[in-house]
């Protein structure tokens, strides 16, 4: 019995070494095959030590997730906008059932609510230009000169839960988040609405300014940059005065 026990132990040990060796070989195979296995199917991002935010530099190149950028940038800063905040039901309208995944469309009047929800501090400033003025000043056409384009900000309009001022009111059967989620993002009624930012001045600035044009393109910059470089474009426009 004793000898058989000892043989068993030896056999087990030998088997363990064989299996361990096999696993190590398989692990080496895994490491070698990993890049090929995931190529085109699953994108991995390596952030490095310096950047501890969610916004990866490749997002800028690819024009992806600009809302992550705007969240990170505005998180500990004050953002000023010129905007009206209307009750949510003014943004809801019926649409063709055949086109819809739900029977109502939520038309989100630009991404101002986004900053109200995510900025460290938020303020309405009537002196900032309204969309019609921004359009007339041709800011979008000059955007490449002054701003970095971050990508399409359609997804930022999905923050429908931010849209309701009547947070404790009766919801009257309107399902805002789901309307938005499935209408605005998946339905592509609007073409790409772009987000722009003046990257050079953002990190040190405590106060930021955001404005939109009629197409709802978003422009974000520091208050100082706005005063020194942007305000002049609006001065001669009658509506602004």
């Amino acid at each position, binding site marked *: 019995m004793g000898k*058989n*026990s000892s043989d*068993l132990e030896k056999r*087990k040990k030998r088997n*363990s070494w064989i*299996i*361990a060796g096999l*696993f*190590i070989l398989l*692990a080496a195979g*895994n490491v070698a*095959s*990993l890049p090929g*296995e*995931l190529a085109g*199917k*699953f*994108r*991995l*991002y*390596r*952030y*490095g*030590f*310096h*950047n*501890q*935010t*969610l*916004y990866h*530099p490749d997002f800028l190149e690819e024009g992806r*997730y600009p*809302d*992550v950028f705007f*969240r*990170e940038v505005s*998180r500990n800063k004050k953002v000023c906008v010129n905007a009206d905040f209307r009750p949510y039901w003014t943004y809801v309208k019926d649409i063709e059932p055949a086109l819809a*995944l*739900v029977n109502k469309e939520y038309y989100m009047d630009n991404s101002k609510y986004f900053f109200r*929800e*995510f900025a460290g501090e938020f303020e309405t400033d009537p002196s900032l230009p309204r969309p019609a003025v921004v359009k007339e000043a041709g800011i979008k056409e000059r955007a490449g000169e002054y701003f*970095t384009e971050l990508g399409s900000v359609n*997804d930022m309009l*999905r*923050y*429908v*839960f*931010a*849209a*309701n001022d009547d*947070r404790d009111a009766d*919801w009257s059967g309107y*399902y*805002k*988040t*789901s309307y938005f989620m499935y209408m605005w993002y998946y339905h592509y009624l609007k073409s790409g609405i772009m987000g722009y930012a003046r*990257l*050079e001045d*953002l*990190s040190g600035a405590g106060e930021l300014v955001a404005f939109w044009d009629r197409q709802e393109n978003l422009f974000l910059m520091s208050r100082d940059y706005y005063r020194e470089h942007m305000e002049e474009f609006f001065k001669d426009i009658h509506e602004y005065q």
Partner: protein
Amino acid sequence: MNINDLMGTLSAGYYARQVLAIIILSLAGWLLLWLLRGGYSAFFRGLLAFPAGLSYFAVLSFILLGTGIRFSPVSVSVLAGAGIAIAFLLFIRRGKESGESCLKQLAFFLPAVVLGALVCCSGILSVGIDNDSVFFYSSYPQILAKEGAWRPQFDMYLTNVGPVAAIINTLPFLFGFSQTFGIQHFLNLNFLLVFGFCLKEKTESRLLGLSAVLYLATLPAFLVTAKWVMAGDYFMIFFFLLFAAGEEAGGKERKPFGADRGLSLVLFSCVLSLVRQEGSLFVMLLAVCFSALYFTSRQLMGLMVLPSLLMLFLYYARIYLILGIRPEKTFLTPAKASMILAMCIASGIYVLAVQKILLPKRRRLALLLPVLLLFMGNILMLFLNPHLYLANLHALVLNIWQRNGWGYFGIMAFLALCLVLFRMIQSRSIGFLLSDAVLLSFLLAVLAACFAREDALQLGIGDSGNRLMLTAVPMVVYAMLVRLFAPTDAQDRKEVRS
């Protein structure tokens, strides 16, 4: 300005805070388990410390949100402190026990945690990011942390996103950093250590445990889930942790159960219940399989079934009755929520019935029964809607065949299965282990969950059914290795006799 420099400037202090968060959660978990010690070895307690601490945070936060008390760093900390104080009082009541030096254990534990946290938060390990990572698991938690409550305007976020996964992802916004990559990587590393330890205990081979961990840690089919910033990683890990905790606690040897074992089972059950909306069904799956072990009814009901049910009641009552949400298009409708509740209650009744009727004489049947019932359930689904069921099965098999996230794991698992069957035929012994029952039940439950989704599964790595099936990978590796290498009494006796 270079975008990386800008983000680097904006993230000043984030690294240190995330490292600190991991250390604090680990210490909290370790302290709780140490104060309530009595079941686990010191080493295993150390391995479970971070998952326990993270679960502790998640459950307390859930209680605050579910009861409508303001959810904030202050309220969570106060509640956590109160819990630790209660554990301390229990510890004092028990009186001093010999042989367990707190400081000596901490002297090993703390440096390991600090080193692990520093590495995991350093950004050298990559992550997978997609839309759901950004919207469900970052911007929604940010709003949740800001609001301090579940609000009706969150609408379908409340019914599509596992609330516990969202809560875990509030950690950055409560404690001043930006993402949970370090926390997720640390949990993965912790999990691999637990996995290796459990395998080593089961197979009595340290070498096998280590090499299996190396294999799993490099396996594409594991890494896809582990690296993806979603609820899937937490689901995969806490399912295995709950399985491991149950397997360890429900063993045959007469031993003190220990409050630390009890706490682990409660915390992991609570987390698993709502880390995904259907998570509670997998808690019940484990409870039902564990009913064949040496637990008492009171232990299983009190430590797994009832905590999970309480989580569900609290959440469903809050979102459907108090907030009154009715999202138009969502995964968790009130009807599905009712069905989940009913199945959980039925599982509780099953556990009581099995313990009363089948045990102790028909333990093997008790282990086989969940698998048979789930199999019959799947057959019923096949009859109810054969087109949908077969389309789902086809999509799942094709995803494995086309290596959509699976790598060559499908082939390896198939070869391992052939080896297992060969060994069974050779030894003329079928044998049915707990890990077999859990694995088969899990696979059948995934098929059932996919059927309940109502939409057919799609091809592609991102399909939800494919992602759910990928979370089975550690369990598959574990079950196969246990099958092949764990010493069984009969097998050893036979070999010794010959």
